[in-house]
């Protein structure tokens, strides 16, 4: 596996996450990279470890009324409202483009009931060219008074367990950070049969327009992303790494290779780049080569040995 070129040994960047073999740990995060095609002019998608597509539901979704985004200090709030083309259009029109690349395609999906989650997972399980599923549980549950699945261990367990039975694809559960105790939720997902965990989704936040005294977002509340939330994401990865034995995927505020390495050291087997794509569409490739440089400089032969190497 280790290629040796003239004394300089290229580090081995491959990681195995939730049964998905990635050629490197750098992926793009759901909702920030469209269906891949939008970014195709800006980078070689083949170089990415994986692409996680915009969250897909059974039926197409309109999303929220605009305004949907607002800038904040070192970040942004979004209330896109999970607008998406629906699973049918995704499979017919979006997936064929992605299949052309030798990059793991992970499909982020959600529903507003356990049944919908199961249905989507079931459909996607029968389709070619999907390496794995990422289940977004930061989604209101219509059967439980629109409480988010991911804010309660019991609901997290239930939805994970139900979906687990519907698909053989690797199942990654994406956790919500808006909780008191992330480890308990992580444990519930593990018990429910998840193969891996992504953390974190956006942190709920708000902004006010002081000129008209109205919320900046039509939806009032939105999700905070970007460097602002990196310390929180990192803390959650580290907390969960100590409590579950599943592979973790770190996401939240990663802008540079240094950020990515922090997550890996804290316990992430792979990372996702979200909001940073908006600032620099080819940032993921830069992060990847920065990680490679770090490994070379520090004589780390296999990135595996960096994962969770934090000395406390």
């Amino acid at each position, binding site marked *: 596996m280790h290629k040796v070129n003239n004394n300089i040994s290229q580090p081995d960047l491959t990681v195995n996450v939730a049964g998905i073999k990635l050629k490197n740990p750098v992926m793009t995060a759901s*909702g*920030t*990279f*469209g269906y891949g095609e*939008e*970014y195709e002019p*800006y980078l070689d998608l083949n170089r990415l470890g994986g692409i996680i597509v*915009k969250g897909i539901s059974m*039926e*197409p979704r*309109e*999303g929220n*009324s*605009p*305004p*949907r*985004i*607002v*800038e*904040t*200090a*070192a*970040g*942004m709030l*979004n209330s*896109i409202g999970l*607008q998406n*083309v*629906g699973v*049918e*259009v995704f499979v*017919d*029109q979006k997936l064929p483009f992605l299949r052309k690349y030798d990059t793991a395609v992970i499909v982020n999906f959600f529903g507003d009931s356990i049944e919908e989650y199961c249905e989507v997972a079931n459909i996607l399980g029968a389709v070619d060219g999907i390496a794995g599923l990422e289940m977004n549980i930061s989604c209101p549950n219509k059967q439980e008074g629109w409480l988010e699945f991911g804010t309660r261990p019991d609901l997290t367990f239930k939805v994970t367990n139900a979906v687990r039975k519907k698909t053989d694809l690797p199942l990654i559960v994406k956790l919500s950070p808006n909780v008191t105790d992330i480890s308990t939720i992580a444990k519930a997902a593990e018990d429910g049969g998840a193969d891996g965990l992504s953390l974190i989704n956006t942190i709920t936040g708000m902004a006010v327009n002081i000129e008209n005294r109205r919320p900046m977002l039509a939806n009032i509340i939105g999700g905070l992303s*970007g*460097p602002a939330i990196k310390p929180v994401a990192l803390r959650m990865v580290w907390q969960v790494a100590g409590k579950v034995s599943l592979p973790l995927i770190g996401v939240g505020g990663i*802008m540079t290779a240094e950020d990515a390495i922090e997550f890996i050291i804290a316990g992430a087997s792979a990372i996702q780049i979200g*909001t940073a*794509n*908006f*600032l*620099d*569409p080819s940032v993921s490739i830069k992060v990847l080569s920065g990680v490679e440089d770090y490994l070379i400089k520090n004589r780390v032969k296999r990135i595996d040995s960096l994962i969770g190497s934090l000395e406390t």
Partner: protein
Amino acid sequence: MLVEILYNEEILLHYYKMGLLWSLPSTIEAGQFLMFRVSDGIDPFLRRPFGIYRTISIERGSKKLGGVEILYKVVGKGTGLMAGLRQGHKVDVLGPLGVGFSGFDGDGKLIMVAGGVGIVPFYLLAEGLANKDSRVQLLFGGRCKDDLPGLLDFENLGTEIKISTDNGELGVRGAVTELLKKEVSDDSTVYACGPKGMLKEVARIARERGVPCFVSLDKIMACGMGACLGCAVKVNGRKSRYTAQNLSPYKMVCKDGPVFDAEEIVWKEL
């Protein structure tokens, strides 16, 4: 893409022109824009969209190089920082992005309605039509005579211009939409760019007169390439149930626009 700043000059109070050493394809459409990273760091965080005012060419040694000029107004933190950038500095830009103006087929009269910095998309257009025998008219409104950036450029092109200012300093006193009411005729095509209120009124007038109208919209953007779904604008005639053609009640200003057929926009929700 890192490009060099050729110049960055205040042309009127709060208005600047910046030249960038950046060769764009000649197929660029009036109304397309670029995304400008105003800071090397993360404050302010997002890129800022700016229309492409015109292309320029410069000589460096024996080489002829292509460039782009933007025209911007200082309104906040990002544009404030831009105003401080100096010649020779490299800035990070993406583009050209979006879909520009294209509804006018050369028949009849093209009326371009601009409010303040809304003038930007019209220079390329006026330039392209300057030596054709199309009838082109610019209606240009501002708060005062110093709120009409680029006016001279259009005069140099020989564009037919009518001006309005809120305080009557130059042209007629009042809103530019009042000019439109007078100038619009049955064979007109109306293009507009400016504040939301102005666009609404332009669209209303065009609808009333039954003439085609295209508007360039301004929405806060994050990605600029249709990926984040942040810059959504509600459009008419689309079912809330998507079809296999992937129709949605929302279009993205950055990718489907910024120029839209005025008829398509759900104005009351803009």
